[in-house]
């Protein structure tokens, strides 16, 4: 069996794949956080809870309504996005004139409510969710064995990230979003309904988190707390990348995921903290973040 730096090659590739998977979720979530923060100036602490809600929506749709994975990929983001729209209209929109920290505290409270309720209803234990039949099994790539579903997640998340980036950079809606991030008042003075744009953006960000949740359901178990630890890591990813750039958020997400995977191979004890350590180093060397501008 071939080895690389004394590590069996398949183990190394396996961890890189796991790193890519984790990185996919870091990228998807930090992307949504960055888009929401750019326009609303709110750090959406509920992002992890919305990811969890997406996974749960898929789980509940399957077990109570009999709706499978593929429709859930559409439905779950719609449901969670709709809930987010209500939250933005009734609560978040009252806080825009205040210090951004209030938005963080509000969404923190909402995250506790969602996670607490689901834990109360479904218990803390994870629930299995099988990948769809079309993506079950695995293939031998010659250098490693890859479960098809994992390959699908990496490709799907890349496509979603790219799609979101195109939406923001190349469409009219994206131009509104970019312009309003710079100067919301002027954009509204040009006749764009900015309050509705804010609602839509929050809804889209939450839907993106929910979509990540559905993708994650067959990989990690569906559990009420699956989002809360993830969101803190994603915060660190966001600090490392800086929130000024959409592409930066995506690249940083994948990069840190892979780095974390490699740490699991070479120094497993440090794998749970490596992202935080990198955050600390980046703060020392380049406080604004790798892709950020000092505000």
């Amino acid at each position, binding site marked *: 069996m071939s080895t690389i730096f004394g590590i069996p090659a398949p183990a190394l590739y396996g961890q890189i794949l796991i790193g890519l998977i984790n990185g996919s979720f870091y990228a998807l979530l930090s992307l949504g956080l960055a888009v929401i*923060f750019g326009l609303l100036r709110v*750090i959406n602490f509920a992002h992890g809870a919305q990811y969890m809600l997406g996974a749960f929506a898929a789980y509940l749709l399957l077990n109570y309504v009999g709706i499978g994975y593929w429709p859930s990929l559409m439905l779950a983001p719609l449901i969670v996005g709709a809930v987010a729209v209500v939250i933005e209209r009734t*609560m978040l929109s*009252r*806080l825009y004139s*205040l*210090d*951004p*920290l*209030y938005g*963080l*505290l*509000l969404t*923190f*409270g*909402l*995250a*506790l*409510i*969602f*996670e*607490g*309720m689901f*834990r*109360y209803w479904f218990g803390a234990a994870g629930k299995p969710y099988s990948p769809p039949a079309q993506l079950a099994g695995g293939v031998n790539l010659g250098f490693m064995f890859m479960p098809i579903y994992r390959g699908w997640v990496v490709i799907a998340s890349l496509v979603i990230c790219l799609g979101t980036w195109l939406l923001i950079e190349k469409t009219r809606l994206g131009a509104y979003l970019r312009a309003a991030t710079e100067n919301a008042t002027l954009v509204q003075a040009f006749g764009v309904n900015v309050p509705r744009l804010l609602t839509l953006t929050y809804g889209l960000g939450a839907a993106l988190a929910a979509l990540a949740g559905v993708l994650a359901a067959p990989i990690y178990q569906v559990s009420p707390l699956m989002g*809360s*630890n993830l969101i*803190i*890591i994603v*915060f*660190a990813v*966001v*600090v490392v990348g800086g929130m000024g750039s959409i592409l930066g958020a995506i690249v940083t997400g994948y990069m840190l995921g892979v780095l974390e995977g490699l740490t699991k191979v070479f120094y497993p*004890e440090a794998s*749970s*903290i490596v992202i*935080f*350590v990198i*955050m*600390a180093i980046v*703060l*020392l060397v380049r*406080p604004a973040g790798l892709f950020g501008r000092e505000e």
Partner: protein
Amino acid sequence: MAVETHYIPAQPKARTSTVVLGAVAIAALLAAPFVVYPVFMMSILCFALFACAFNLLIGYVGLLSFGHATFFGGAAYFTAHAVKVWGFEPLAGLLVGVVGAALLGLVVGFLAIRRQGIYFSMITLALGQMFAFICLQAPFTHGEDGIQGVPRGHLLGLIDLNQPLAMYYVTLAIFLFGFFAIWRIVHSPFGNILQAIRENERRAISLGYRVDRYKLGAFVMSAALAGLAGGTKAIVFQFATLTDVQWQMSGEVILMTLLGGIGTLIGPVVGASLVIALQNYLAAYDFPVTVLIGVIFVICVLIFRRGIAGEVIELMRRKAG
């Protein structure tokens, strides 16, 4: 944080009404263990001190730390270890906890103050999570089990802290010491500069203050006092566990302060008492505490940003014209 609080300028002498109120409060605290369970009161005192320490940062410097559990829970581990494994006398054990928390505060603060506002909060949260992971893996914390069976010991070799009343009065003394330390800090020239930084950081910089040093100083003091609270808790309850270093605990101390009134001296005490009482009450039911904490958060942020003490002060101010 541009919070809706009232910053009360340093007064050379406390007003007589304040002195009277303070005397009544201390008398009530002295009598309390004869009315309610001492353990319950000691729990309130520990968390009240923790919340006051946290409030020093948010209320008087405008920095929202989302990782204060690190200092509270970290000190609990340090004190528990020093007392149980090294056989330290309780006060020396507390000192180990406080110094340890201050050192942690120095590291976390040094990193976190490199960014402002919302980033500061995210960084403290992330570093707090990192510390929680370290505690999970480090051998001396005993992972999921925590450090159990910490002896209360004899204070200075004289007072037997296994006596509930003795333990209570020592805890009360520690709380009062911490509370007045914070009062002194807030009303010192140092505290005035902190508040000037909160009001207008640019202006403070242009006046020639090394703003970062003041922020770091405040951060370390806040961490040390949070450590005093955590160390005391370890001795009172005779254990230190992961619960105290996790982000949920950082969230709870924020809630206590927000509910009681950010930027008021007494607010965190009120908030901590209410939250602890509520948790005690709910323990008998199966309704999840986290949900209620979340609901209180939402209500406070949406309609009650001054907190209880803040609202009362505002009411009295309006009455006084």
